[in-house]
């Protein structure tokens, strides 16, 4: 059904700016169709299309989506056991997420930065004391939900965030948990 929709709508796609769009890559076409159906049911702004040449790795269909919503969209798919191989920007399918961590030890406090997001905890209690950086509207929300709670009690950014900034904070959160468990 999803694939049929794609074929029917192929000539009627509205003009969409691609600067802020991403591509979800899947193992096979069946997963593309499942994903399209799941996301269309949520009225997401998506479309099925052919992959750019640089990521043509087998499945000949990908799903284009609003890149900023990556975290929320992947959570939706994974909740239904549909797992994209990767999510990449349309503007540069070979761009990789920033994956370098920076750590600053303030003595009583430890800060971990992943991409544009920083997470700071009080070491003795493992309490999240600050979330900083980022520019997406879930950053203040994530901060309000996490600050004042221990790492174990605070919600994982992956579970309540929605955007790429939330995704970056998840990486910082995982790295912080790893460091605090050492």
């Amino acid at each position, binding site marked *: 059904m999803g694939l049929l929709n794609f074929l029917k709508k192929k000539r009627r796609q509205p003009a969409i*700016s691609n600067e802020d769009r991403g591509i979800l890559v899947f193992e096979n076409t069946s997963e593309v169709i499942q994903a399209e159906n799941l996301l269309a049911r949520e009225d997401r702004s998506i479309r099925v299309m052919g992959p750019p040449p640089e990521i043509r790795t087998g499945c000949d269909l990908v799903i284009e989506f609003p890149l900023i919503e990556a975290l*929320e969209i992947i959570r939706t798919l994974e909740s239904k056991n549909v797992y994209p191989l990767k999510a990449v920007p349309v503007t540069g399918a070979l761009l990789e997420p920033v994956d370098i961590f920076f750590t600053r030890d303030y003595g*009583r406090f430890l*800060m971990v930065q992943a991409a544009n997001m920083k997470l700071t905890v009080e070491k003795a209690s493992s309490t999240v*004391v600050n979330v*900083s950086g980022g*520019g997406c*509207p*879930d950053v203040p929300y994530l901060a309000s939900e996490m600050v004042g709670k221990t790492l174990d009690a605070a919600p994982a950014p992956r579970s309540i965030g929605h*955007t790429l900034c939330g995704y970056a904070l998840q990486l910082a959160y995982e790295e912080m948990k790893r460091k605090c468990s050492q």
Partner: protein
Amino acid sequence: MFAVVGTVPDKDFPLVCEPAALSDGKLIVGDCQIPINRGTPALLASALQAGEYFGAPPPTACLVGDIGTGAGSRKLYAYLEQTLSRLEFSSLTFHYIQPDVDWHKRLLSAIDQMPNRPRLIADAGFMYAAKMSGQAGVYEIFTPDIGELAFLADPDAPHPFYTRGFIFHEPERVPDLIAQAYASGNAARCLLVKGKTDVAANASGVIKTISEPVVPAMEAIGGTGDIITGLVAAFTAMAYDSLSACIYASKIARMAGAIAKPNPGSQVTDIIHKIPLALRQFF
């Protein structure tokens, strides 16, 4: 009169567009009382502190609840598209709004219909949208941190999460990144790059660096960048030129931080409360 456009991290917060005030440590907009923890409320609180010190009129706050789904942001985009042509502001500061290139373009069209074109300032998500849309040049001021500067300098990066060459804490690269951002048309007329050393720049390159006083804990405190952008907005509304507004904002934020003597666990409100004292010492 200037306006600040942004979000509140509460999905049920209504769309409001009214003059803002401070009362009992809360931001007041219309009938709404908003905690000043971080984000756009922290930006507005900082701008209000500066405005009150100088007896300047308060900003109009155009706010909506959004926890990152973008639903609130889209309501705000639509509201502004419908109303901006009837409004008059000396400047518009855009902040934590879901980046959306199509809505960004529509909003710029609406701004073109305003009776007098305001100076445009962008930070956070809206700066991302401005860069991605290829229309950064219509903005007067961007206030990126170093990571966001690397994003502006990378013509292909759609978000700071996907920025090539993003190396942490290499301030010596800032002049090159500024030059690249201007060369690729992804910078506003003036940049204030926030970091251990703040850098005010324009298309000619670095104009001024501000590195004193040093308050290392501020890097960890959420909302310190919002203080700077709020002060930039306030000084711009007082008719300071853009570079001066950026330089004064950087200096006052640092001084307020030094007065507050924060640790990495302090909250941004601890610093915002010290802005009047910093202004008194500086001016």
